[in-house]
């Protein structure tokens, strides 16, 4: 039934092999983080050398974010920090978070709702690490976090991560299964949960919302804004930026206050809200360009630059 073409990011198959991922996880757990990090160099080099589509996507993003022609070292840095964040998931999910230096910036606004047991929608992106957010929430017992994920997408990684930490599985709200998703979200929000989701990749047959992003027109998913408008919930944004070494900084901001939006105004609301999100995402993507982990063409509607 799906008439719209599949989003670019879905066309990339999961490249990693299950046995390879399990081997790396095993090695990381037995050798420790410092030794395991030595693997990041050959792994990053392998991806840079063997994947023209990753190189292409990296260059097209970095040219916009850096405002200059990217060098191969820029692409390598981006792939390397992606690999570093994936590796750190192993340690963050197995409760080894004392090994990390995690700072929170703007937490007063972002964690306010959560701390008060108030429902909120928390939006993030494939910029840095989402798992450091879990760690910060876990440290504050009253806060309940649920994360929307499509279990079918990246199934193998999800299974491996769920094996490392059963709580990880319990807090996932499955994005599959059609109209029931919103009922699931509503039930979690009624229980005062903060519901987190990625707001930078289009899923399913969503036509998306066109926004200005890093000097071009890109499309963002419309779901988060429909949900916020229908339920009148506040929207908080959060990006867990990897700063190198063992340092992460979580940036929180309240993007939109709680306000129910009448149906007639929702289309305009979604346009304005998606653009507001894109503007902040652009700010953080420029500030931490090597944290950008969308390795596909983010501006498919724009003519190629080269």
């Amino acid at each position, binding site marked *: *039934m799906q008439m719209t073409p599949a989003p670019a990011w879905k066309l990339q198959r999961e490249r990693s092999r299950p046995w390879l991922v399990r081997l790396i996880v095993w090695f990381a757990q037995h050798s420790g983080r410092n030794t395991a990090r030595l693997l990041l160099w050959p792994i990053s080099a392998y991806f840079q050398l063997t994947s023209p589509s990753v190189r292409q996507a990296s260059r097209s993003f970095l040219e916009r974010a850096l405002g200059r022609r990217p060098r191969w070292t820029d692409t390598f840095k981006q792939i390397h920090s992606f690999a570093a964040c994936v590796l750190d998931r192993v340690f963050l999910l197995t409760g080894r978070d004392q090994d990390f230096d995690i700072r929170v910036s703007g937490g007063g606004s972002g964690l306010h709702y959560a701390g008060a047991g108030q429902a909120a929608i928390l939006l993030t992106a494939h910029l840095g690490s989402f798992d450091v957010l879990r760690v910060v929430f876990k440290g504050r017992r009253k806060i309940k976090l649920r994360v929307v994920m499509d279990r079918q997408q990246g199934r193998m990684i999800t299974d491996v991560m769920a094996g490392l930490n059963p709580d990880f599985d319990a807090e996932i709200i499955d994005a599959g299964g*059609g*109209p*029931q*998703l*919103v*009922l*699931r979200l*509503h*039930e979690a929000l009624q229980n005062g949960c903060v519901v987190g989701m990625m707001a930078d990749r289009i899923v399913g047959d969503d036509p998306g919302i066109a926004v200005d992003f890093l000097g071009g027109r890109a499309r963002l998913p419309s779901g988060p804004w*429909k*949900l916020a408008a*229908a*339920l009148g919930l506040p929207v908080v944004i959060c990006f867990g930026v990897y700063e190198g070494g063992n340092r992460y900084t979580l940036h929180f901001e309240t993007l939109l206050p709680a306000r129910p939006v009448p*149906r*007639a105004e929702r289309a305009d609301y979604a346009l304005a809200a998606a653009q507001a999100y894109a503007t902040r995402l652009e700010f953080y993507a420029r500030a931490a360009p090597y944290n950008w982990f969308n390795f596909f063409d983010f501006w498919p509607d724009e003519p190629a630059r080269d």
Partner: protein
Amino acid sequence: MMMAGAQALEHELAELLISALNIEGRDASSIDPDAPLFGAHDVGWGLDSIDALEVALAVQQKYGVELRADEEATRRAFTSVRTLAEHVATHRH
């Protein structure tokens, strides 16, 4: 007698859908009770998942009947106006 009651409830639910979702150009007395609620516009109501939530909230408010996520009964109820009416008839007090 049962039949007439079921039809009246279907009509009532069609009206509820139309008012809760601000649907224009659709008349509750001329709808096909078996038309699918979700999916393409040309064959059915063409509702999306946010609409599903608003329908669930409206049904709960009016009849005190809950449509809970991840229950087979909910999946069935959301098939058409007829199945929604059956669900409400079975669960309301």
